[in-house]
Structure formats: C-alpha cells, structure tokens
C-alpha cells in the first residue's frame, strides 16, 4: 500500500473551516427537518388511528407514498421537478430568488420523508396502548378528542421514545443526501477534502468520528429522556 499519511492536513487552512461548516450544515438540516418531521408525523400518525375512514385513508396513503420512494428520488423531485409544476411565477421565484434553495429543499424532502417514518412509530405506539384502555376511557365518559389528549397520546409518546431515538439518529445520517443537490454538509466536505488533498483516509476518518460522536450524543440525550418519561410499573404490553 502506497499512501502518504498526513493527519495534520485536517487542521490546516481551509480544510478545518470546511469541516466546521459541514458540521453546521448537517446540524441545520437535520434539526430543522426533525421539527418538520415531528409535526407532520404526529398528525399523520394520529390520523391513521382515527375512526374517520377518509382521514385514515389519506394518512395511510401519505405513509405509503413517502416510504416507498427512495429519499434521493424525493430530493430530486422537490429540487428539479416541483418548481416546474407550480404556477410559473412561483416557479420562477423558487429558481431565482428563494434564499438558500438547497437548504430549504433538503429540509422539506428530508422532513416529509422522515414524517412518514415518525407517523408509523406514532401509529404503532397508539395501537400498543390497546383497546382495553381506550374502552376504559370511553366508558369513563371521555370523548374521542379527550381520549387522545389525556390517555392515548401521553402513554404512546412515552412508549415510542426508544424507536424515535433511532429515527433521530437516522435523520442526521440521511441529511448526507443533501449533497446530491449541492449542499456542502459534512459528508460532502470530507469528500471534497479527500479530492483536494489526496488524504482520503484522514478526511473520511474525521467525518466518521464526527458522525459517531453525534450518534453517541443523541443516544445519551434520548436515554435521559427515556428515564425521565418512564411510567412506573408499566411495560407497555401485557
């Protein structure tokens, strides 16, 4: 193997700046998309469990649609196709004047895609609470809305903390797809450094270490959340 090691390259100008900027974009995309994913995902997930057939159908269709098309294709649809399908003025605005088009597109694509996965977790959490408790709540005189507000949502949110941890991690990893529409996030920056310096090993190692740190951090945060929200004596399934 013929290779010139040079770990110092990571700390020289401008490569250190590139890495830092990459990390910033990764966080920016992942966190904003996560907020979008939570809002849409919770609405869609709850919608799938509602007694109303049309609402449940629309929400199921959403999940199936977004889950069965690769995220990369969705990214391209939002970036290249959507501006062509909206009214001309709007399309022109998106293409010419919209600030940070790569960032906005990446957030929308990643957020709506992740929403379909969040929705699945929310739905699973609600159905794990079980028909028995739902019946008890109705028998207790609660309306459908109150049953969700006081019983189903509080319990299911606690149940889905662990699977949501892995979704939260996944959104950081999936934010790397933003590089396909030209956003220079962490993975893109490491590849760029590799190309400029021929020190691929060092560049990819740096990115890998940073991703591992993000994963550890997210796991720790979620473990704390899990301990904090645990229901004494309740296993979630009987």
């Amino acid at each position, binding site marked *: 193997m013929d290779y010139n090691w040079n770990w110092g390259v990571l700390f020289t100008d401008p490569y250190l700046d590139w890495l830092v900027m990459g990390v910033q974009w990764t966080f920016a995309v992942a966190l904003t998309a996560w907020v979008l994913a939570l809002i849409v995902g919770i609405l869609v997930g709850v919608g799938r469990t509602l007694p109303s057939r049309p609402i449940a159908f629309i929400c199921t269709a959403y999940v199936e649609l977004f889950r069965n098309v690769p995220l990369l294709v969705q990214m391209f649809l939002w970036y290249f196709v959507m501006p062509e399908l909206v009214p001309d003025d709007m399309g022109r605005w998106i293409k010419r004047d919209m600030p940070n088009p790569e960032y906005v597109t990446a957030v929308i694509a990643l957020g709506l895609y992740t929403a379909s996965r969040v929705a699945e977790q929310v739905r699973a959490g609600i159905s794990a609470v079980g028909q*028995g*408790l739902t*019946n*008890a*709540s*109705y*028998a*207790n*005189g*609660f*309306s459908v809305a*109150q049953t969700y507000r*006081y*019983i189903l949502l*509080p*319990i299911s949110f*606690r149940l889905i903390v662990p699977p949501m941890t892995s979704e939260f991690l996944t959104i950081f990893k999936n934010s790397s797809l933003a590089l396909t529409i030209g956003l220079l996030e962490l993975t893109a920056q490491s590849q760029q450094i590799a190309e400029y310096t021929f020190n691929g090993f060092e560049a990819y190692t740096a990115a890998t270490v940073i991703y591992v740190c993000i994963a550890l951090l997210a796991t720790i945060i979620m473990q704390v959340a899990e301990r904090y929200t645990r*229901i*004494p*004596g*309740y296993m979630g399934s*009987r």
Partner: protein
Amino acid sequence: MIEIENLSKWYGDFQVLTDCSTKVAKGEVVVVCGPSGSGKSTLIKCVNGLEPAQKGSILVDGTEVTARGADLTKLRARIGMVFQHFELYPHMTVRENLCLAQQKVLDRSRDEAVAKAETLLNRVGLTQHIDKHPGALSGGQQQRVAISRALAMDPIAMLFDEPTSALDPEMINEVLDVMVELASDGMTMMVVTHEMGFARKVADRVVFMDAGAIVEDRPTEQFFSAPESDRAKDFLSKILNH
C-alpha cells in the same frame, strides 16, 4: 333502567349475539354467567355502546344506545364500568385516575374531585396508595381503584366485566367485598362473572348465556335450585363441583 331487546350482533359472518332480551330495574343486581365465548362480555359492552350492535335496541335510562347519533359520551359518563384487566391509566397516579374524568367530563373543581377521590379510596381502604402509580399496586388493589374511579362519576348504574377473572385467588374476596357493599347500598348493577357464591349472595336475577343467546333469565334462587335447561345444569355442575 337498562332494557335490552332482541339484540343481535355479528363479527363479519360470525354471529356473536342472537336475539338477546333482558332488563335490569333500578336498584337491581343482575349476574350474567355462562361458558367462555358465550357472548356475555360482548353483551355488557353493548350496554354502554363500546361494541356496536347490528339489530335490536338497548334503552338505558330512557336513552336509546343503538340509535344513530346517540350521545354516547354523555351516557357513558353516567354509567360506571369495571374491566377484567382493570385498565387504570398507567401514566397517572391513583389520585389522577380518579380525578381526571371528574374534572374534564363533569367539570368539577379540583378540590371537589380530590375530596371525592379521597372519600372513595378511604371506603375501599386504599388511602395510603393515593400517590402511587397503578403499576405499583397488586391486582386486587388495582381493581378496587378501578371501581372507585367508576364510582367517582356518581353513576346511575355499574357494569362489571369479569372483574375478578384476572386476579390471583387470594385477591378475589377483597374485590367481591367491595361489590357486595355496593349492592347493599342499592346500586344498580350488571355483573358478568363466574363467581357463583357472589351471585347467590347478592344477585336478584341470573342471566345464563350460551353460544350468544340468553338461555335462562330467572330469579337467583330458582336458577340455582332448579335450572331448567340442560346447558345450565351442565354449566353449574362443572363450576360448582370442585
């Protein structure tokens, strides 16, 4: 108080209830028994509309439960129900389990709700557990909390769906004692149970079901001393001769 008339129900092609008719008068205690799978739990869940029925009618205190657009929420607030698996809200303390519906459904003040909760828990001897979560209690204790939760709504009638079937044998009596006391206070009760001792002691009538139909519906003493149908005889001999 509760009038069930020609009630039939299907799950797809499978008929679970066939032409069931019976009545529970105000202050009456009616025990529903029968082999498992005979439809007794389904019948009692129809009374407060947890299970929809396809044919027949149920009248509860003048409200038609099976009618389209019936205000089930309002009706359910006035009928207490106790479940086989307690179904206490696991994420809330015992106190909150008793207070939540009082405050959110009946619009009682916090103080009023808590006072009511404390009185009821005192009656079933669980005052010291008021701040615990249900998961920290034994099955018998949980079921007594569940009965108190239902009573906190000042119900006009109580439905019990196999309240002791999920309990360890040594805890059955603590729950039955509460139910006996409730009956002697004049509560209207419909009870699905296998506890024939309880039925003998407090029931005014016994409804015996088999294969989704009501086979016998007679005063308690007559049912036990001289069951008419072979199926009831068979059932009693199996359940009593241990």
